[in-house]
């Protein structure tokens, strides 16, 4: 293969267990976001817009939907003669087989792929962040600092700093210490999980890390601290745009709501940095003769006959007349029947909410059997993809309804086959 100066490797194999039922059957990067996107569209579009032409996508957990979504990369202009997207699952080899044991191991197992492009720099990206970033600027800063590794950092509120990996730097910006979730953080520059490495150095570090039986083979926990300890030149790159790790139900919901409450935070209408996505082949969206819609984002193929307030409506969604949906996220293919009232709900792909279902934070006489305070907060209720919420069911806030509940409580829910999703919703 012809040489590529920079290649990007996107870590897309994580389960995203804190998203609960939303990632039961799909990897986190394939979770729908912001009406017409999947989370994965953001790093992929950033690559395209940064002029990066070779992108490896490391998959492991439930990759079917993600693989078929990415396809040959055409939607992001990443179907190229030299380079393009490569889906890189773990594989069997003569010396044995391994799942990806950690983020660093995933890259280690793909050293031959990276070598085939003979790159100078390798970007390690995460498939589950919402942000717009010019990676080229980060690589330029990496070159200017004569760094061997550059870590993108963002200022976080001091009180939250102990939840992140914190970078302590000297006056030149060189990292002297990396603390993972420190109890008493010395500063508030958090690692975004976006790294730029000089390939020669990273290659050696990965081989060393792999040889260490005590290592968890993780970039944040092992490889980067190891490089700092070994005296490599590790620098930070400060990013000051919008960045959100949408790893929890609350952050996923908030980040979606940010699109409505302050569209300038991550301006999706900016044509100089388009976020690309697969385009469903559906007609424009329709507002019915008695619809009431305000403060709502909506995309092609949807039909609103009822009311939507402060809601993210994805493609192929129907809201019938007499339904009221407020502060909610309706994922692709979901259907809300007449009389249903949903407030602060996330409705998974192709799930049907039948007549007069009510799911609001303080629902009177609501069933509270499915409350999941560990994953759902702030009154947000989540319905898994491919369910039917049966007529008249009432549910209190902070509930999480999955396929298991359809089996245990068939009076409320039913599971539907999801064979048609690829064709209809993509």
């Amino acid at each position, binding site marked *: 293969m012809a040489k590529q100066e920079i290649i990007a490797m996107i870590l897309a194999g994580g389960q995203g267990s804190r998203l609960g039922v939303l990632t039961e059957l799909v990897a986190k990067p394939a979770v729908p976001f912001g009406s017409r996107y999947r989370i994965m569209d953001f790093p992929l579009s950033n690559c395209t817009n940064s002029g990066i032409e070779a992108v490896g996508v490391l998959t492991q957990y439930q990759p079917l939907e993600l693989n078929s979504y990415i396809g040959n990369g055409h939607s992001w202009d990443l179907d190229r003669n030299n380079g393009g997207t490569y889906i890189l699952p773990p594989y069997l080899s003569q010396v044995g087989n391994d799942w990806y044991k950690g983020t660093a191991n995933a890259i280690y197992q793909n050293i031959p792929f990276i070598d085939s492009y003979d790159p100078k720099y390798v970007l390690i990206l995460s498939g589950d962040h919402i942000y717009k970033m010019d990676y080229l600027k980060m690589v330029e800063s990496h070159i200017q600092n004569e760094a061997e590794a550059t870590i993108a950092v963002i200022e976080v509120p001091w009180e939250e700093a102990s939840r992140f990996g914190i970078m302590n730097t000297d006056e030149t910006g060189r990292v002297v210490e990396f603390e993972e979730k420190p109890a008493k953080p010395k500063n508030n520059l958090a690692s975004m999980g976006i790294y730029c490495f000089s390939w020669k150095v990273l290659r050696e570090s990965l081989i060393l890390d792999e040889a260490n039986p005590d290592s968890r083979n993780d970039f944040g926990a092992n490889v980067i601290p190891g490089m700092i300890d070994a005296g490599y030149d590790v620098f930070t790159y400060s990013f000051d745009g919008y960045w959100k790790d949408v790893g929890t139900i609350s952050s996923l919901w908030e980040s979606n709501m940010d699109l409505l409450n302050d569209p300038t935070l991550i301006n999706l209408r900016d044509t100089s940095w388009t976020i690309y996505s697969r385009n469903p082949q559906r007609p424009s969206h329709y507002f019915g003769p*008695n619809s009431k819609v305000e403060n709502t984002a909506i995309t092609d193929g949807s039909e609103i006959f009822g009311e939507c307030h402060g809601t993210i409506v994805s493609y192929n969604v129907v809201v019938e007349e007499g339904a009221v949906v407020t502060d909610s996220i309706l994922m692709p293919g979901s259907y809300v029947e007449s009389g249903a009232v949903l407030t602060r709900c996330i409705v998974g792909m192709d799930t049907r909410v039948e007549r007069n279902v009510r799911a609001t934070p303080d629902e009177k006489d609501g069933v509270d059997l499915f409350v999941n305070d560990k994953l759902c907060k702030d009154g947000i209720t989540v319905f898994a993809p491919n369910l039917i919420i049966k007529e008249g069911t009432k549910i209190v806030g902070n509930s999480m309804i999955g396929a298991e509940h359809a089996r245990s409580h068939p009076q409320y829910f039913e599971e539907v086959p999801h064979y048609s999703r690829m064709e209809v919703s993509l």
Partner: protein
Amino acid sequence: MITDAMGLILADNRRIQLGALTEPRAIAAIPFAGRFRIIDFTLSNMVNSGIKRVGVVALTKYKSLMDHMGTGAPWDLDRMRQGLYMIPPYINPITREPDRTDAQSVIDYVKTGDQRYVVISGSAFVTNTSYKPLIKTHIESRADITILYHKDGPIDGPLAMALELDDDGYVRDLMVDYPRSTSQNYAVGLIVISRNLLLQLLAEMMARGIADFSILGILQNYKRFRVQAVKLEEPLLRIHSVASYFDASMKVLDTEIRHKLFDVDRPVYTKAKNRAPCIVAPGSGVVKNVLASDGCAIMGHVENSILFRGCVIGRGARVTNSVLFQDVQISEGVVLDHVIIDKNSVVKMDGRLLGHPGFPIVIEKNAIV
């Protein structure tokens, strides 16, 4: 079953002009239903019927059409074998003038295909149907030409091609623009013909120096051949004038018709644009009976209208019974009724444009009102 037919779409029609709407583009490239162009419908019908080789005959102003078609990827027509062929007219190498006929480039296209049949489609209609049964009937009946017809003629008359059929569904008489026609059978503007017969007719046309290759031109031979007619059952929207374009657009707002026009099993493909989702702003006016598209930002009142991608409706603006093409900007306080506004135009503060159902006002591309 493999479809043994190639497609041929006539993107222009010398007899049909839609004023300012066809000034910058071929009729096939006129935007329709929010995010499509007229050609997307017959082209998707062909692709959904298993046709894998489609030629698009352009005459003039084909830049817009070429931009739209690209490599044919949205229709899966970017192929190593077969695929999409753009057929612009040849320039005469000696006079440097356009050749007097479209026929030579069409002959070259038809000759190089190995399918036995050709589906020839005009561009003055929109429907969603499969051409498979039509092709099948054509092959089984051994008719020379099979013509698709619909019970409804054009709403305002011109180019009505009325068919009189015998009991076996063969064409006995064919009349164009006959004012006293009581026919219930009007040609849609789509025929199936064998490749060999088409090549023979094209050769005859060239020999006679006939300059215009059209479906009507072929059908004028109906007395020499066995011409059979097959009825189109799906809704048909004819577009041959500004009034009929407006009427057809408003029919798409009808949910029953729209669902048939965008049958889930037969998707209508078009070029992707990657616009952000449409935003209906907090405190916007009423938005009802509206077909809107990605990239729109609605702050005003919109009713009975179609908004193409990227339209912006300012606060306090009132848009009713109108069709706004891509990236049209309606400033604050503007009032529009029965208006068609072409791409990229701007209507500035407090403008008022009031048309009439039969005579909608048409604002040209890139205009500032």
